[in-house]
């Protein structure tokens, strides 16, 4: 299985090479005699001698892959050198993980330290696994550390053929929009197969900002018509590590008009995804419509059973529109898993939902997302959405529908208290005394609560939150809702006021002074859909 990379930038396909370099290629490594400084990286084409090759992230060869696959977006380390990297892509050129003899290349986002050839590879994150392979080279390519050597591939994913020193004709982006990239990536000039499983490739659409005048990508995208598979995704992303692009293309965890930005005010959704296996990672998407339906991503699946990931994106629909469903899941014809991790989802506070699942065939897992001013936070009509570690702020309409019992550690700030009481509980029982604005349980166990823990009176369906943990047998509450004998549930959900770095400036990083959301989430490193870093690629504990 091989990886292919194609770039798209609103700048277009004009030549952006630095100087007049010569190129030579040996074993898939291109050496240029002029350091490159342009806005280039993975997915860009290098043309020379009437030939062309595509830049890939720096990589490490490996052998002796065991039965534990090295997965995408995992953090690995070399046991001898201590070098670490996060995996962007994997080529399997021989053997297999199942057979315990996989060999090929690991393409990395960035590098700390210096990889050695012949050292054991461990996986550090999301969870530790020892001896998953052995390096068979040092780091290949010096993108981010010299910018004269680049891993280069042919259009169908194999290494570019060897080449003696010749002049570079051009270095350029391949497409001028994500829409054109999605249209052309499987044509005869590229993968040459609309079936990624048959072609046995993982396709990466690399989105670059316009370095000349920061023009947005204004063309909406429909992802459909290509066969994908569990090992053959279309991965749409913004190159952000020093080993995959000279400049970071991804937003800095907040809105940035100088990074890749997909926006217009004409279409109901900026990205409509019909395919079975896709990843959208690190994009800024804004729907600027001021009337009618407006949203960022419409998730569908008309292909086969599949899995879709929406990761590290900033999704905005802030116009005065009649209906805003920022991430809208419908028309799921096959069993589909939809995973949303580390996204900022910003609505217009007027109508619609931040995340809305309409389809019984979709199972949705939304972890560590920040929902801001979505009129209604989330909705699921079939109780198939699991919410963990999400932050909901100023979502005045609260939630609609029901959710799985696994929901836990969500924080609600200025939403609807009664609609925050769902999911995992710390404890439950019956009040053993009546005391104004108190929950008393003489049997103890209440010290598991936190200030802000959401409390439900399960006898009469009234709600409060904890204002103080008085003792193991008594909590102070925001409302007087208990008399002796009434049932209670103390949820892991929290009702608190969060402090952002610059809320008015649409920067939803947690401020250094915030005590509401810091350190109160649950560790999801071992979850089926693990979260071990954040929207800024900083590691979580």
């Amino acid at each position: 299985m091989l990886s292919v990379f194609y770039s798209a930038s609103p700048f277009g396909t004009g030549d952006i090479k630095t100087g007049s370099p010569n190129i030579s290629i040996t074993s898939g490594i291109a050496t240029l005699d002029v350091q490159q400084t342009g806005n280039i990286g993975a997915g860009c084409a290098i043309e020379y001698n009437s030939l062309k090759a595509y830049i890939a992230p720096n990589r490490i060869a490996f052998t002796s892959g065991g039965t534990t696959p090295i997965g995408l977006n995992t953090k690995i380390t070399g046991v001898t050198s201590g070098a670490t990297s996060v995996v962007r892509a994997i080529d399997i050129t021989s053997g297999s993980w199942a057979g315990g003899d996989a060999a090929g290349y690991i393409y990395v986002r960035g590098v700390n330290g210096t990889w050695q050839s012949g050292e054991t590879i461990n996986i550090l994150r999301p969870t530790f696994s020892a001896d998953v392979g052995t390096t068979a080279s040092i780091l290949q390519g010096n993108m981010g550390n010299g910018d004269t050597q680049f891993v280069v591939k042919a259009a169908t994913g194999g290494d570019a053929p060897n080449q003696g020193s010749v002049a570079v004709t051009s270095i350029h982006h391949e497409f001028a929009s994500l829409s054109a990239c999605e249209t052309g990536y499987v044509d005869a000039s590229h993968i040459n197969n609309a079936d990624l499983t048959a072609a046995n490739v993982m396709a990466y659409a690399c989105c670059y900002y316009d370095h000349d005048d920061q023009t947005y990508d204004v063309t909406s995208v429909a992802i459909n018509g290509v066969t994908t598979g569990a090992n053959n995704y279309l991965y749409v992303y913004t190159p952000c590590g020093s080993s995959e692009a000279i400049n970071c293309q991804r937003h800095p965890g907040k809105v940035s008009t100088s990074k890749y930005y997909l926006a217009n005010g004409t279409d109901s959704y900026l990205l409509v995804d019909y395919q079975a296996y896709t990843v959208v990672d690190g994009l800024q998407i804004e729907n600027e419509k001021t009337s009618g339906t407006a949203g960022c991503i419409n998730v569908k699946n008309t292909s086969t059973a599949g899995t879709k990931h929406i990761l590290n994106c900033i999704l905005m629909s802030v116009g005065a529109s009649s209906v805003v469903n920022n991430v809208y899941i419908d028309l799921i014809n096959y069993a589909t898993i939809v995973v949303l991790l580390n996204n900022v989802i910003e609505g217009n506070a007027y109508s619609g939902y931040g995340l809305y699942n309409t389809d019984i065939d979709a199972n949705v897992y939304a972890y560590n997302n920040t929902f801001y001013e979505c009129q209604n936070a989330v909705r699921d009509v079939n109780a198939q959405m699991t919410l963990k570690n999400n932050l909901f702020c100023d979502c005045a309409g609260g939630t609609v529908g029901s959710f799985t019992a696994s929901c836990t550690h969500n924080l609600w700030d200025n939403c609807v208290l009664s609609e925050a009481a769902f999911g995992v509980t710390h404890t439950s029982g019956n009040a053993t005394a009546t005391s104004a604005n108190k929950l008393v349980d003489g049997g103890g166990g209440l010290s598991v609560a936190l200030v802000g823990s959401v409390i439900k009176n399960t006898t009469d369906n009234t709600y409060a939150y904890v204002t103080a943990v008085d003792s193991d047998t008594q909590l102070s509450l925001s409302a007087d809702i208990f008399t002796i004998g009434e049932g209670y549930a103390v949820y892991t959900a929290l009702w608190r006021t969060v402090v952002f770095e610059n809320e008015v400036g649409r920067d939803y990083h947690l401020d250094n002074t915030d005590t509401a959301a810091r350190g109160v989430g649950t560790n999801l490193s071992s979850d089926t859909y693990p979260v071990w870093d954040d929207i800024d690629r900083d590691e979580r504990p």
Partner: protein
Amino acid sequence: MSDIGADQATQRKPKMAQIVCIDIGTVRDGICDVYDVVEMQEDNVELTGAGYENLKIIKITNLTVAEVMAVVSLNGIDTDQIINEPDPPIDIWKPKQSATWYELQVQPKFNYTFEDLTQADINTLADELATTPDKLAVLNKVKHKVPLYIQNLANPVE
């Protein structure tokens, strides 16, 4: 030499819209057709190389993308949703020139198509000497794809 009159014509920058359409090599059966519009770019955006070998580019001289869209969108559509509690909302659409809403059954991959333009029309669009009214008349042939699906006309909404 100076131009006669208030305007110095040599100081006006040329402008041209580039309409990128599906060509034979990028058709996906049942998904998109030749002349479906993939993207629109101004003339300062280079569209060359392997990325555009299987797409066709229609050049419209003396008009910007915004000016092209101002005409093309007149034949476009409006979209909305009907709240249908407790069921999911219903997507609806109407032609911009009409007041009748319909249920949206089929969402095409691309919004617009130039399929009704003849080669003479395309030549007119590219012709520097063709008048703007002539070009706008040609652009009036550009169609939105939603109304082209009979399913999208099956259920008018009260």
